[in-house]
């Protein structure tokens, strides 16, 4: 069977070679990079602009962004028909292609996040390494830990006041450089689509900007979601342990107070970017309808007809409008915030879906349609990686990775 034939149903006049070649993993790819970029921008708001209320969130967002960073290229690898040749992008980058920049932008961004993370946690590495060094009879586990932390210090053991000051300066500079690079990382993901002139739905110069805005929205939303969930777990633990070792742990009320404060502050920024993202998307839609070029007939039939539920009900309605109202209403509560950020994440995912799959829902002939049927139950490698299972795998991987990184870079100390 031809690649793509399995999940594509053709209707009316479609060229023989046309299939939905870019499927669910290509939906996941901008979604995941968007989360990376968004989480980083959120952390930079504190480091660069000194927004103190975001301090608690900043470290968390940075570590989470780092965890997501490792997952972001995974959907691309899943999507490639020759995954083992993926390295070719680094070896012979062909710079007239938007994808060729991936290697460079991605590694540059990774280096920035990694070094910023190192500066933030350097003191901790040194402290632990020194404590373990002075310890007499180390157990095997402690020896391993000692080795790991010694490596992590990179041989720099200076934790004097001046050295730490320099660290802070470096963090600020890195975070400042990181914002445009993060925007570039994701803006260029938008460029990959926006520059395809053969695709009537994708081709718009607004695409990179729309992608950046929705990226920041989704990044902040995911950070809030994870933050709230972790705080809830901590509250649960606190209420259990409050009887025995109350002095060691924060009390439930303390956590609650901090939590609602952080959530309230972050929600304000989320709202700002959300309004921006929605305006841009609507501008694009209005502009297409107003100019109504050759492709508009088929686009209109897709946007207002075939994909109406996906676009206007799932994306704009449930994913944008409802959370917008929920966030705008006064006296926000944790439950309401949790619901809104979950809906926003869903909305951004649907936006990616409607761009990637929607862009292939009509034929290059403008006289036919293609329907996408995502493989749900995997029965071979292809139906796994290009189906629901592969998408879920990619979507859930950041969490165990974050759990692991949290051991090295504890975010809540």
């Amino acid at each position: 069977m031809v690649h793509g034939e399995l999940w594509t149903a053709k209707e009316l006049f479609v060229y023989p070679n046309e299939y939905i070649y870019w499927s669910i993993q290509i939906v996941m790819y901008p979604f995941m990079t968007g989360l990376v970029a968004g989480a980083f921008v959120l952390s930079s708001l504190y480091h660069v602009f000194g927004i103190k209320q975001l301090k608690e969130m900043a470290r968390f967002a940075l570590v989470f962004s780092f965890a997501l960073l490792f997952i972001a290229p995974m959907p691309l690898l899943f999507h490639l028909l020759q995954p083992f040749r993926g390295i070719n992008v680094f070896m012979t980058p062909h710079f007239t292609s938007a994808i060729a920049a991936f290697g460079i932008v991605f590694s540059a961004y990774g280096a920035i996040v990694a070094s910023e993370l190192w500066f933030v946690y350097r003191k901790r590495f040194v402290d632990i390494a020194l404590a373990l060094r002075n310890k007499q009879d180390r157990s095997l586990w402690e020896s391993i830990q000692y080795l790991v932390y010694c490596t992590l210090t990179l041989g720099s053991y200076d934790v004097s006041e001046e050295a730490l000051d320099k660290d802070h300066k470096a963090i600020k500079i890195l975070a400042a450089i990181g914002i445009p690079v993060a925007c570039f990382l994701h803006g260029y993901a938008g460029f990959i689509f926006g520059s395809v002139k053969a695709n009537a739905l994708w081709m718009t110069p607004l695409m990179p900007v729309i992608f950046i805005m929705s990226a920041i929205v989704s990044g902040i939303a995911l950070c809030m979601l994870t933050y709230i969930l972790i705080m809830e777990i901590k509250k649960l633990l606190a209420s259990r342990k409050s009887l025995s070792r109350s002095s060691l742990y924060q009390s439930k009320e303390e956590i609650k107070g901090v939590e609602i404060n952080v959530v309230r502050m972050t929600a304000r920024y989320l709202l700002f970017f959300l309004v921006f993202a929605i305006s841009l998307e609507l501008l694009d839609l209005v502009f297409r309808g107003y100019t109504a070029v050759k492709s508009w007939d088929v686009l209109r039939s897709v946007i207002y007809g075939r994909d109406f539920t996906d676009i206007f009900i799932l994306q704009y309605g449930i994913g944008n409008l409802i959370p917008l109202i929920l966030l705008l209403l006064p006296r926000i509560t944790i439950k309401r915030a949790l619901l809104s950020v979950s809906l926003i994440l869903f909305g951004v995912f649907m936006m990616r879906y409607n761009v990637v799959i929607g862009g292939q829902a009509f034929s290059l002939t403008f006289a036919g349609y293609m329907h996408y049927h995502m493989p749900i139950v995997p029965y071979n490698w292809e139906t796994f990686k290009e189906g629901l299972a592969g998408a879920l795998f990619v979507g859930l991987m950041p969490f165990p990775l974050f759990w692991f990184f949290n051991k090295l870079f504890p975010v809540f100390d």
Partner: protein
Amino acid sequence: MISRRNLLKNTVRIIGGIALPLSAFRIIDPKEIFAAYNDGTKVRWVFLVDTYKCVGCGMCVKACKLENEIPYDANVTRTWVERYVLTKDGNVLADSPKGARDGFTNPRIDLGLGQYADIKPAEIDKAFFVPKLCNQCDKPPCVQVCPVGATYQVPEGVVLVDRTWCIGCGYCIMACPYGVRFFHPKYHTAEKCTYCYHRITKGMTTACVAACPFGARRIGNIKDPNDPVTKIIMTERVGILKEEYGTKPQNYYIGLSKEVK
């Protein structure tokens, strides 16, 4: 403290210092020197399709599949034939079942999803066939977007794919406005019509041209003024497909109609 005068002076110096060696690079671009002395090549392959002569027998598709080892039953093909049927009530119907590999033996129009349209001959205003293949564009968007440079244009204008280097991302497939590209079912890399490059470089004609019983397909060298194909393109009225994308396609069509997609 640096004075304003010095700052400006140094700025000019630095910009000048950087610009000079960079401009030298530009002056001695070997490609330009080569082009100045030599046109590069004496050949630019182009294709000429006479739609009046096409009867939709599908011999070209069959020949192409066999010649270029595209699995015979796979629903992808390097070349195909489209059928257009315009009814008296203004409807335009078109199809290309299996790329017309077996010809158009059935008068019913394939609407996809297992449905067909039965059009009575009396209802038809006009109907015709249009063979399609890669346009070997002068400005190929597929070459532009390949992230690893696995697809490239040879000096004679034909666009080829390196099966040993293609990563299978599908960006070129997305970038082609003509839908000529697909993934090879066996090699799992991007695949496309090459004007039978392995044949035309040896003085033969393409498989589809050789197989066409009616002379609807012809290949020629646009740089040779005595080539019969060139003469037709230069002196008769010919059309190209999807000019608006700016890809400068090199397949010329006689008898192109506005309904052709």
